[in-house]
Every structure is written in structure tokens, then in C-alpha cells.
């Protein structure tokens, strides 16, 4: 409901403060006293009409009763109601009402003066302005809502992933945190498992890979990377070891590293060939070796999970089972902590309220 005391930007009813005396009616001082439909009075009128179900349903009599304003006669109401029904145009009010109130905002005076002389033009310009303003307003609203909705979706996905990770946490696991930029190398386990990558078929071992701070992807280094390996199989070194050593240990089964590395990028990707199945597109999720660009060496990393927002970690569990033979697809599961984004994304939009 429009409040006379509060100017509202979108409404042409906006008038400053027409605070009326409590007696209610303002009558002109013409020889023939005519009722001035001031803003407040009109507002009460509109209230009453709405209460009664609209201008078509309301009758002067009922309005009078509802309004309960002393001195208001049926005649006043009849004519006013007629005008109201006909136009229902807020702009009309302008012309009808008292202009002499000194407490108007100046913008309105301007508007009014132009309206009185070129009412039509004023009206349509007003409408256009309102339309534009409305659109802008709407757009801002949409943006805000979009952000919330994306967050909601993200939260839901995250809950799902956490749940999934937890269900896989049956296996024994070892958690290590690495600081950003580091990686963990794994010694070759004594078992027949060539490396720490775990097959998902066995239950999934999420590994987290770290791109390093100089990643061209512009992802910040991870604060919290968790690398999981089965305790009985792996020995995790929290330091940067010499790549070649770990490389060899990882790549024992395969020597065709050259096949696997891709020259285009700063990252060399290597995969133990035991996991490469028949040259098809179905390579294991195993994301081995990634470099830190300055090294120029290929190092073995656990699969990358690029995480631009540090946050709640998934503690997940590696499955110990490793198929050395490469019959099936061995994959490692990524430890998905946060949504991946390209550098173009607005970070804040993807913040998940933890």
C-alpha cells in the first residue's frame, strides 16, 4: 500500500508529504466549495474501493460507509468513483489534485508541470522510464537469485559427494595433507601393485593432484590436498622427491612414457601403461605425473582436482585393489572438493556455503 509519507520511486503517486489535518477534508475557498481530493483522501478512497472488491463492485454508498469520512457526500464519491473507474490512471490524479502543497519534491513539480500541458507525452515517458527501471530492477533480482540457486545446487551436489565418499571410506586409508604446490610421491609398494593408484572398481581411491601455483589455469594452489593410499601398500612421502625416482617406480610396467606425454602443454602426462587399455579413449583416471612447470620433470601426481576454493575436504578412501594387468580400466577417483571453474568464473559465485 502506498504510504504517503514515504516517497516510492516507481510510483507516480509519489508525492511528498500531504499531511492532512485530522479533520479530514480540504475544501477550496471557491465560492462554491469543491472537495479537494488530496492524496491521503484519495488513498483512503482507493483502500475502501479495494476492500469492497474493486471499482466495479464498489458503490458510492458503500464506499462512504467504509471510508467513514465526515463531510463526504454521495455526490463527491459518485463523481470521483466515476473518474476512477474510467481512467484508473495515476497520472490523472496529478492534474486533479491540489498543486499548491508546498511540500512536494521538486522533481515532481517538474513532472507535473509538463504533465499538465502535455499529459499524454508525459505519461508515456513516465511509463517508459518506469519500464526501464523495472527491467533493471528485475535483472538485478535475477542475478541475485541466480547466485543463490547455483549455490543451492552446489550444496546439494556436495552433500551427495560427501555421502558417496563416506560410503567408500570403509577401506583403510591414510590421509596426508600437502601444502599447495607440493605433491606426494609414492614408493612402489612391495606388492604387485605398481603404484598407488587404486582402481575404482575396487572401491575407488581418490587422489588429489596438485597443479602447483604456476598453473596456467590460474588456480590457486591447493591448501588442502589429501592423498590417500592404503597403509599397507604405500609409503607416502610428504616432501618433494626427486621425480625420476618416483617416476621409475611408477612406470616400471611401462616405458612408453613418450607415448603418453603430450607436448602441447606444460604438463607431461604419464600413465603407467599397465593401465592403458588398448589405446582406446578409455584411459584410466589415473592422472599421473604432472609437472611443476619450473621443474620440467615429470612427476607423478595423483589426479588433479583443481580446487579454487579451499574448503571442506573430502576424506576418502583409496581402495587397495590394483590391477596390474591392465585388463580392466583402472581408475582413480578424484577427490572432488569444489567445483572446478575456468578462470573466467566469478569465484564468489561458486562459493559453497559450507
Amino acid at each position, binding site marked *: 500500500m502506498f504510504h504517503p509519507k514515504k516517497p516510492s520511486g516507481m510510483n507516480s503517486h509519489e508525492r511528498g508529504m500531504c499531511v492532512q489535518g485530522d479533520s479530514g477534508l480540504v475544501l477550496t475557498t471557491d465560492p462554491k466549495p469543491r472537495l479537494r481530493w488530496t492524496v491521503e483522501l484519495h488513498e483512503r478512497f482507493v483502500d475502501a474501493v479495494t476492500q469492497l472488491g474493486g471499482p466495479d463492485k464498489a458503490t458510492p454508498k458503500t464506499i462512504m460507509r467504509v471510508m467513514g469520512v465526515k463531510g463526504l457526500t454521495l455526490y463527491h464519491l459518485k463523481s470521483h468513483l466515476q473518474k476512477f473507474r474510467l481512467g484508473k490512471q495515476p497520472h490523472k490524479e496529478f492534474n486533479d489534485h491540489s498543486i499548491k502543497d508546498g511540500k512536494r519534491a521538486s522533481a515532481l513539480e517538474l513532472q507535473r508541470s509538463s504533465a499538465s500541458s502535455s499529459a499524454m507525452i508525459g505519461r508515456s515517458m513516465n511509463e517508459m522510464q518506469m519500464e526501464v527501471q523495472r527491467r533493471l530492477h*528485475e535483472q538485478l533480482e535475477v542475478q541475485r537469485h541466480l547466485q*543463490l540457486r*547455483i549455490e543451492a545446487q552446489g550444496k546439494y551436489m556436495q*552433500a551427495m559427494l560427501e*555421502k558417496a565418499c563416506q560410503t567408500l571410506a570403509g577401506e583403510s586409508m591414510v590421509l596426508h595433507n600437502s601444502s599447495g604446490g607440493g605433491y606426494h610421491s609414492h614408493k612402489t609398494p612391495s606388492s604387485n601393485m605398481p603404484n598407488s593408484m587404486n582402481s575404482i*572398481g575396487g572401491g*575407488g581411491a581418490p587422489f588429489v593432484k596438485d597443479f602447483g601455483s604456476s598453473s596456467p589455469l590460474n588456480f590457486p594452489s591447493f591448501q588442502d590436498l589429501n592423498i590417500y593410499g592404503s597403509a599397507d601398500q604405500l609409503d607416502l612421502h610428504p616432501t618433494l622427491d626427486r621425480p625420476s625416482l618416483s617416476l621409475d617406480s611408477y612406470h616400471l610396467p611401462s616405458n612408453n612414457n613418450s607415448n603418453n606425454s603430450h607436448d602441447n602443454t606444460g604438463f607431461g602426462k604419464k600413465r603407467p601403461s599397465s593401465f592403458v587399455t588398448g589405446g582406446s*579413449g578409455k584411459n584410466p583416471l589415473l592422472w599421473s605425473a604432472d609437472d611443476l612447470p619450473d621443474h620440467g620433470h615429470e612427476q607423478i601426481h595423483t589426479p588433479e582436482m583443481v580446487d579454487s576454493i579451499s574448503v571442506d575436504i573430502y576424506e576418502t578412501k583409496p581402495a587397495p585393489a590394483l590391477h596390474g594387468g591392465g585388463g580392466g580400466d583402472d581408475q582413480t577417483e578424484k577427490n572432488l572438493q569444489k567445483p572446478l*571453474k*575456468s578462470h573466467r568464473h566469478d569465484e564468489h559465485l561458486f562459493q559453497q556455503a559450507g
Partner: protein
Amino acid sequence: MALANDVDDVTMMEFSGHSTTAADADEFDGGCCDWSDWSPVVDWDAVPGSGLDGFHDLMESMLEDGTGPHPHHLPPQWCDSPPSVHDATNDREGDGTDGHDFKGLRLVHLLLAAAEALSGKGENRELARVILVRLKELVSPASGGGGTNMERLAGHFTDALQGLLEGARAAGQGGGGKHSIGGRPHREEVCYNQTEVLVAFHLLQDMSPYVKFGHFTANQAILEAVGHERRVHVVDYDIMEGVQWASLMQALVSQKGGRPSPHLRITALSRAGSGRRWTPTVQDTGRRLAAYAKSVGQPFSFHQCRLDPDKTFPPAVLKLVPGEALVFNCMLHLPHSAYHTPGSVASFLSGARALSPRLVTLAEEEVGLGGGGVGFMGGFMDSLQHYSAVYDSLEAGFPMPDRARALVERVFLGPRIAGTLARMHRGRPGEEEDGSGKVGSWGEWLGAEGYRPGRVSFSNHCQAKLLVGLFNDGYRVEEVAGNRLVLGWKSRRLLSASIWTSSSDPDSLD
């Protein structure tokens, strides 16, 4: 390897039926070296299918610096290859971009040739087999995360074609039917475990607006149409993980005006024995949604509606509450959904018709709609363009060759491609298995069924534009026919989301 045998076969082969090299040597005499006569520049006009203009775009996009193919590169390679397998090194030592461009182009040629060989009446399996061998050489070293987009894409297509080949052979021998996803069980369904798929799905949502586009457009339309009601009932054709409803619930509870949020009831269809081991069960999804609803304070209830194996949708099965606003939701664009036969979708949508829902929201991929030419070749090229655009769009979100992308491609796109090709190859366009009569898109079908198009509001359109703007400039949103928003990548439409109402309803969208 089988190559040695192939060499023998090759020498026996006759290329006379090969329509793609119209003027060139069709005859293959003696040794292998007449390959030099086989121009790598395919006679495009001879290739059936009218989607060639788009195809030139595809080729353009692969030639980064605009250099054309070099005809003289090819013959020596081919001449050398039959005895030696390791041309792979040769190829890759392609000198920087040139080599890659050309290689990409070559891959396309080979793919088309193989598809051509497998299509239509002139089905020439031997030829296809040889071409596929060559293709595999070319893509194998680069597959799986390395290589360009084209290489990986070609890898998937090669696998798919291989599947067709084997499937065809198996069928010829009276072997069993193909899976709906592809004819090679040992490759397809294997190791998709639920977590992996889930992770890939999460990644996909972050890499591209693909998933959210459909969901958010539908949600906004639902919100506008029934957000003010007291009770809302949504029937979801394929709820999958239920992620769409999380954001709808959030939107419902935070509606302006402080109204209480309507009671939301969701009925999810489940199919017995759908064979999808890698998506959560409907019950799990329901539980999860209920938990989420509780956390945001949304009154919620969940029902499951089990369909018969024949997957027809019986409207009577739904429990309806008087006074609730009914919405039917059909999101067909999720990449990891199982294949839905047209008959099943049709039965859902026409069953919905009987109930006069307030709103029907639909999202579908813009592929295989028959616009790219007829026959298997047309469909093949359409698919190639489509998935090439998808790959490009993913790459734009993740510029580096990346494990995340490789995962998404492997888990989603590979099987999707294989499945699409298998279906295209099996069926003839226009003769759908269940006679649903669907030729064009589902949107068109809905229009024909008597649904009225709804209206995409300014807010909805605005939201879509903002959403894709978050990802990459290459995406664009078009509004088509007033009731449809189409998400495209560069010049290729990827998916469309549309809104429909029953004609008995007054237009309630605004």
C-alpha cells in the same frame, strides 16, 4: 596385431564401390601403393547428406591457422603404413600446429569414409575395418587426455564405429543383440561406478552451463507458473540425482513477498531393470531431496512411481491431490541418463496430456533431429558436429588438456556417442522402434500433440544469459518461438529448453 592379415585383405580389395572418391582411382591393384591415388580431399559433393556447410565449419575450426590439407603428405604415409605400424610417431612429429591441423582433418576424412562404408546399402565392412585400423593408429597415442580435442573425439567415434562393425558382424553371425549403449560390452558399461559418474557429473556442471541451463530454465518457468499456489506436484520423468529440485526448492522458499512456500510434492518415475548401475536409485534421491528440503524449510513429500518394463506411462497411477498444480518435467539432456526410447518419452508426454498439467517443461539435445541430412551419414555428420562443439565448449572452460575433462568425456560423451551411432545405424530415420512417430524434436512433437507453447519470461531469458555468461563468451542463448531457449556454442545449437501448457489452461505464464 591384426594388421598383417589386413594387409592381405587389403590387396584383395576393390574400391570400386567407393563413392567418396568419385573420380579417383577406385581400383586397387596389386601392392599397397596405389593409395597415392586416393586423394585425401574427399569429394564432398558425392557424400550424401546435406549438412555440408556446417561441415566446412567443422573443418575450419580444426585448421587453426587456416592452412589447407596437403595432399602430398598423405600418400607416402599410406604407402609406408601397411607393413609398419608405427606411423604414429610420424604423424605426431607433425610439426606444431600444421601437423595437428592436418591430422585433425585427416581424422575427419577417415571417420567419414568409415561411416560411409558402414552405411546404407553399399555397406562395405572390409573397407570400414581397414579404415578403422588406420584411425586407431592415429588416435591411440593421443587418446585419453592427451591430444587435441579432435583426436580424442575421433577416438570416441572410432570406438563407436568399431562397435558398429563388430555388432554388425555379430549380428550377421546371429550373435546377440546389441546393448542400447553400444555393441561392445567389454568397453562400455564396465567400470562406471557410481562415484566416478557422480564426480564426472559434478565436474561437468562446473565446466559448462549445460546441465544448469535446462534445469534453471525449467525451474524459473515452474516458479512463475505455480510458485504462488498452495500445493505443487511435479512429475519427473527421469529424476537422476535430483539436483534440479534443490535449486527449485531454494527458489520457492525465497520468493518475494514473504508468502509461505507451497507444499512441493515430487513423483519420480522409476523403471524396473533399467540397467543403470551408476546412478542413484530413486529412493536414495528421494531421501536426499527430503533432507535438503528440511534443511531449507520447504514442505516436501516424495513419491515413486514404478513403471512397467514396457515403460509406458499410465496416468492413472499418479496419486493426485485436488487443488494442486500439476507440472510435468522431462529433462532429456543429461548426458549420463540411460537411453530413453522415443516410445517411452512419448507415452509419458501424452499421458501427461490426459491430466492437463499446468506446465510441461522439456529439455532436449539438439542433435539427430534430422536437419543434417538423411541416412546414417547425415546423422553421423550431425553427431560429429555436435560433439565437436561440445568438446570445444568444454575445452573453453578448461583450456588445458586435463584429466577432469578427459574423465567427463570418457564417462559421458564416449558412451553417448557410441549409443547414438548404434541407434542411428540400427534404425532407419523416421521408423522409430515403437512407432511413436517422432521425427523432429520433442518440442515439435509436443506442439503437434496439442500442447500450447508457454512463454519464456524476461526473467527467465535474463537468467539464462547471465548463467552462460559465467562460463564463456562462446556460449549463446537464443529465444526461439517465444517458448524455447536454446543454448548454443558458437554456431552450433547444443540443447534447448522449452515450456508448454495444456490448452485448457489460460495462459498462466507471466
